[in-house]
């Protein structure tokens, strides 16, 4: 088991390193950062000045090595746009994204699991179809469209919620619904199939035969086992949400890390983009690792492969 864990962790670190190196190269290939920083109206002298000041005139491998050495010590450099240390920027913006991700995941689970259980208890019934329809709709709606429609309905027609911003918890309601609804189908399907499998098994029949209350059978006996794949899937889903919240953050003016990454790319704020990619890939790799380990713990067969 220890060797398995070490191997997995080693692999995860390699993946994160590879991602950071690849993104470093690709960002540099996309255009001259000095021109982007100087703005659309800058003269050649302005651009040359910025190029030297930020060290873009040195060989790529030197720039990457220097960045990596700093990053390993927790120093991600200074944002070329905000002129503040990148780690401060991220400390300021990451909580917004984490909060949105956590709320969305919670929303998705709270919506999808009851739907999945209901569907499993009444397979192929009208309830099953309805649950399927509701959850698939979540995946079929383009999320930017859904986001705008929600704004128009809940902020313009009936001004119940603020249209955009992040200053109060009310500001998070609409983005949570949009982001969470998108994750609903997968969780719903997993719950449904897990429940169906478990409900057909012998020990459930035994529990029923003992004359236990149906709700008790469902919650105490069946769900415990059916929910395990959902848990490991949700860890991965959380990673998707952190990466996939860019559009939602932009539409709702949330000023989280996703929007920061997006804006930083267009203004060639390379230190910021680099740091965000590294942190997001570390989180993602970490969540995957956690999923792997949970699975290995649950199923000894995985450990030996």
């Amino acid at each position: 088991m220890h060797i398995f864990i070490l191997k997995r962790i080693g692999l995860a670190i390699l993946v994160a390193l590879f991602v950071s190196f690849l993104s470093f190269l690709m960002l540099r290939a996309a255009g001259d950062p000095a021109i982007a920083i100087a703005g659309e109206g800058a003269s050649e002298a302005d651009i040359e000045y910025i190029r030297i000041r930020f060290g873009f005139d040195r060989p790529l491998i030197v720039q990457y090595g220097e960045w990596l050495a700093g990053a390993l010590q927790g120093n991600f450099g200074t944002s070329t746009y905000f002129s503040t240390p990148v780690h401060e920027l991220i400390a300021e913006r990451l909580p917004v994204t984490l909060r949105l991700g956590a709320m969305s995941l919670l929303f998705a689970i709270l919506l999808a699991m009851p739907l999945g259980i209901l569907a499993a208890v009444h397979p192929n019934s009208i309830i099953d179809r309805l649950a399927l329809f509701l959850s698939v709709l979540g995946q079929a709606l383009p999320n930017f469209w859904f986001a705008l429609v929600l704004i128009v309905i809940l902020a313009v027609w009936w001004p119940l919620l603020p249209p955009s911003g992040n200053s109060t918890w009310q500001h998070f309601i609409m983005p949570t619904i949009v982001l969470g609804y998108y994750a609903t189908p997968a969780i719903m399907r997993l719950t449904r199939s897990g429940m169906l499998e478990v409900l057909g098994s012998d020990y459930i029949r035994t529990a029923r035969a003992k004359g236990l209350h149906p709700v008790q059978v469902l919650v105490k006996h069946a769900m415990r086992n059916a929910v395990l794949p959902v848990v490991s899937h949700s860890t991965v889903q959380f990673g998707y949400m952190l990466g996939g919240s860019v559009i939602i953050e932009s539409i709702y003016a949330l000023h989280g890390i996703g929007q920061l990454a997006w804006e930083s790319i267009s203004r060639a704020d390379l230190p910021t983009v680099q740091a965000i990619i590294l942190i997001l890939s570390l989180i993602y790799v970490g969540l995957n690792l956690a999923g792997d380990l949970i699975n290995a713990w649950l199923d000894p067969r995985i450990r030996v492969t």
Partner: protein
Amino acid sequence: MRSLALSLVMAIGLTGTAGHAGPDDNSLNIAWSGELATLDRYYNVLREGIIVGRLIWDALLFKNPDTLEFEPLLAESYSFVDSTTMDFELRQGVTFHNGEAFDADDVVYTLNRMADPENGVLTQRNVNWIDRAEKRGPYSVRLHMKRPTPIALEFLAGPLLIYPNEYYEEVGPDGMGQAPVGTGPYKVTAFAPGESITFERNENYFAGSPKGKPSIDVIRQRTVPDNNTQIAELLAGTVDWIWKVPADQAAALAGRPGISVVNEQTMRIGYLSFDSSNRTGNSSPVNDVRVRQAIAHAIDRQAIVTALVGGSSEVVHSACHPAQFGCEQDVATYDYDPDRARELLAEAGYPDGFTIDFHAYRNRPYAEAIMGYLDAVGIKTNLVYLKYAALRDQVYAGEIDFNFMTWGSYSFHDVSAIASHFFKATKDDYAGDEGLIADLTIGDNSVDRDERLAAYSRALKAIADNAYWVPLFSYNVNYAFSDQLEFVPNPDEVPRFYSTRWK
């Protein structure tokens, strides 16, 4: 697709709009997409930075947006001693937001500090003409220039905002960027970089400023990246003013009760640029003047303006914006005439046309319309659509034969900000025309108004005759705001919130 979504939703019977709260407490809520990292005007390059800078600070001079004349602002009067020396008498009794008194020390300190390349002001061309400023009395300053600078007044009325010397010496650009102190009509009371700014009216703003007495008590700015969200905020009444609304959305908004939509020109023009001097070494067909003229004749620019650009945009014929000083309008024009284009192509030895790479970085629909017109006369184009930084890189490296780009002249009302930028042996110069360079040099360095006009006239005629550029059209901006708001946009794309008021 996204704009379609919102238009549809807007069209589905949205009756009446929520009232705007602004007039009740005399506050103004504005939203834009720009993210200001710092408010220090010398260390940000965003247009929003210009807008904010003019609220917080004053310059020595003021350019009247209606007459385009220069008026004294922090200076009481100014005069040219010779072509490279200016004297300023300063206004007395003015104080900065923190109580520091304004005097010659502030002016001398600001100009000298910003002109020093060591201090890394981002837009060096705003300051690199300054030799030094010299104090001649408590309210008297002499400015020495490195060379005759006819557009010195533009700089002195625009980006060269005067900072308080004691405060800036203490806090530097970082401190000023987060907690700015100026003499201007508004002071900043809260700033979250990239997210929001709150301004309060400066009750002590000096009487007699050409900016006038500010009316609105509190201005709250929020950064809302998405255009559609901005519109929703405006419709919900949570925001009173937005700008840069796309043409189709502006049309839909214009019909809504309680909302005013105003379209205003900008200083930006679109143009086609050619490698006229075979700088790339590709021996491209566009090396031939007849081919360039054929391209000019092939494109129906008026149709593009009418169908796509919209608003108050106009076709331009000279390589500058018509509102700019020295923008000669009496130049060779090329009307839409595809037959003439085919003739010219045949004369140049391309009776069956040719294939060429066509580079662009914005307004893809405009680029595609141009490609359609060129196709009709036999010129096949491969569109290479790049990010601005990437395309600019290649232009500078001398690798581009044919492109569609735009230029906003930093909103400077002077031809030197565009023609000299592109044709005076700069990295942008693909014409390499010695006579043209000589004329532009005369125009840029003379302080004689008539001599400048004559030199630029010759230059712009040469550009048009040789079709070094095909100027296309001017750009425009849509502003949308509460119809109770008294707001007048200007073609320089710098909204003046200090003179905005509720009706």
